[in-house]
């Protein structure tokens, strides 16, 4: 029988490689009694020929053979078929050789003579291992389909450039810095990079650096030991450890304090973290993607952001232009959001009226894609039929003067702009303050001054 002969499920295709006839024949007869398909080879050269000609699940390989040494045969067999589970056999127990074989990628190592039970268990384990590996590959394939993030959409050349850059950078392990105004979709791009990268089956851990005070951010990022500070009752692993093998997404990296910047730089350079209150460095394997809506280069110049950290983070730079600079993306994104919300709210397929599309196209979208998404969600909620009308959109969109400067006085202009940003951010004060580039107290003062009120229905 040839090696490519189909075998029933549960049985293995086994190759026995040994220069001693008695060993080859005994093992072959033994495995055949278990229903496995067995071929034999009396030299490494013959084994290589058989493996190149057909598929085997497992190979039992004698270490000491004339001609090609067993370890060399092992390397060549593994190169010819990386899926092959190789078990090395020897008549002399040598820890050194065993370690070498295992480091070389052997599935196992056994010493002659074998205990029949041990050999039977080894083959059973190998069969289970192969079955789990096959299942793992199958599940990863279904995961790729089921958990794939939505594609990055955009008809504009600027967005096409971002899509191309994401495709290129995904294959590498370089750090990526994503810049763009608030609401442009920096996290969406980060998720797209992670999902297309070799690290996709490991976690992507998101840390919003701007939302946490310095002490808590340190603990979140690097973890802490029990008793490191008041309230630290148990050991806590940080985000770098949680992302083992995956991606750490540091959002709002521009908000990180100088002290944490130093610690981040050390982690990036040494790939080890030391938990707060701990002394033992823990090796970590991660990729960093960071994002900011601030001008980091300006921050470097003014001394609030470390230059060495900036260059560490900015190996590849992806800039997402604001939505107002790529108006051709508005209808594409709006249609996608409309389909998504109609489906999630169990509505029939919906479409925009020409007037609604005109209004969407004329609006400058200071809150970018996030504002557009909120506006479409509101329209699906309030719209009563399958066509989204202009009046279903928020007032600020339909009443925005096309391209005009707006109200007459500076105060009126400021009032209108602050209100527009607040609406776009869903009255999230932190987010709106960031878009307006003022602190929260200033924003509260403006709200009081202009007597702005959050709409009752949240629209």
């Amino acid at each position, binding site marked *: 029988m040839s090696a490519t002969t189909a075998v029933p499920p549960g049985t293995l295709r086994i190759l026995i490689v040994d220069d001693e006839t008695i*060993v080859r024949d005994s093992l072959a007869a033994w495995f055949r*009694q278990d229903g496995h398909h067995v071929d034999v080879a009396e030299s490494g050269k013959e084994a290589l020929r058989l493996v190149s000609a057909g598929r085997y699940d497992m190979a039992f390989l004698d270490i000491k053979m004339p001609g090609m040494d067993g370890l060399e045969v092992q390397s060549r067999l593994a190169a010819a078929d990386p899926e092959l589970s190789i078990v090395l056999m020897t008549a002399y127990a040598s820890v050194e050789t065993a370690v070498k074989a295992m480091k070389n990628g052997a599935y196992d190592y056994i010493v002659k*003579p074998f*205990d*029949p*039970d041990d050999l*039977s268990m080894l083959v059973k384990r190998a069969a289970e291992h192969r079955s789990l590996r096959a299942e793992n590959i199958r599940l990863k394939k279904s995961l790729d389909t089921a958990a794939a993030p939505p594609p990055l959409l955009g008809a504009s050349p600027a967005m096409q450039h971002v899509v191309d850059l994401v495709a290129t950078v995904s294959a590498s392990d370089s750090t990526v810095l994503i810049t763009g105004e608030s609401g442009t979709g920096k996290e969406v791009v980060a998720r797209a990079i992670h999902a297309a990268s070799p690290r996709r089956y490991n976690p992507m851990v998101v840390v919003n650096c701007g939302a946490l005070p310095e002490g808590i951010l340190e603990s979140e990022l690097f973890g802490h030991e029990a008793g490191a500070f008041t309230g630290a009752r148990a050991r806590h692993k940080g985000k770098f450890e949680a992302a083992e093998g995956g991606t750490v997404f540091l959002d709002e990296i521009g908000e990180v304090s100088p002290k944490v910047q130093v610690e981040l730089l050390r982690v990036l350079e040494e790939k080890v973290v030391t938990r707060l209150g701990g002394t033992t460095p823990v090796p970590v394997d991660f990729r960093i993607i960071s994002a900011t809506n601030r001008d980091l280069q300006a921050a470097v110049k003014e001394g609030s952001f470390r230059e060495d950290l900036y260059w560490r983070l900015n190996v590849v730079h992806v800039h997402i232009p604001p939505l107002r600079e790529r108006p051709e993306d508005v209808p594409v994104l709006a249609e996608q959001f409309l389909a998504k919300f109609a489906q999630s709210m169990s509505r029939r397929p919906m479409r925009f009226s020409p007037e609604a599309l005109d209004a969407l196209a004329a609006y400058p979208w200071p809150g970018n894609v996030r504002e557009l998404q909120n506006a479409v969600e509101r329209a699906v909620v309030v719209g009563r039929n399958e066509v989204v009308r202009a009046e279903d959109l928020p007032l600020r969109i339909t009443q925005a003067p096309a391209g005009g400067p707006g109200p007459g006085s500076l105060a009126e202009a400021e009032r209108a702009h602050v209100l527009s940003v607040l609406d776009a951010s869903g009255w999230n004060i932190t987010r709106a303050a960031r878009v307006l580039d003022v602190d929260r107290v200033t924003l509260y003062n403006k709200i009081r001054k202009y007597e702005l009120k959050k709409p009752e229905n949240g629209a």
Partner: protein
Amino acid sequence: MEGGAARLAEAVHLLPVGSVPPGTVEALAARLSRRVELACHVLSPRDLKVRRIPNRDQLDAGALLEALEARATADAGLLVGVTGEDIAIPVFTFVFGLARQGGRACVVSLARTDPTFYGLPPDPALRDERAVAEVLHEMGHLATLEHCPDRGCLMSFAGNIERVDTRGSRFCPSCADRLPHWLRGPAPMPDLV
């Protein structure tokens, strides 16, 4: 279809080989005759001059099987070598028995079926029952059967004495269907109600 050993079997001959405790092969034949539809004969002991495995106090089971197969002529039925000595094939630490699928001869060792091998008190009945199970298992191979994945089947692989005891002494329905009539055992007595 019954071919090879199945077609040839009219009787089973048990041949004591090497050192065997007196009376054990006869006791084994008596037990075996209750499990198969074959006449079970005990042959006179023979010194087959089988080689020992170097540096190990074990008979070479492969060489012993070859010697038995050479004696098992076409008209002699099945030949079962029974030895009280420990046996192995060089690549294994030991075997309970050995047969070639579709062959006419097999060998079983009583050494490891004996509780005293494991430091336990003697139990001749248990030793002989285990030995019968081993003979039936090897005869299953002679009837071309492979190892069975059903762990409760006599044809399942046993790599230690616990498995010999726990797998029982019966063939599973799937293996029983493939057995020749003489190995299926006598038909059960009809209900007398």
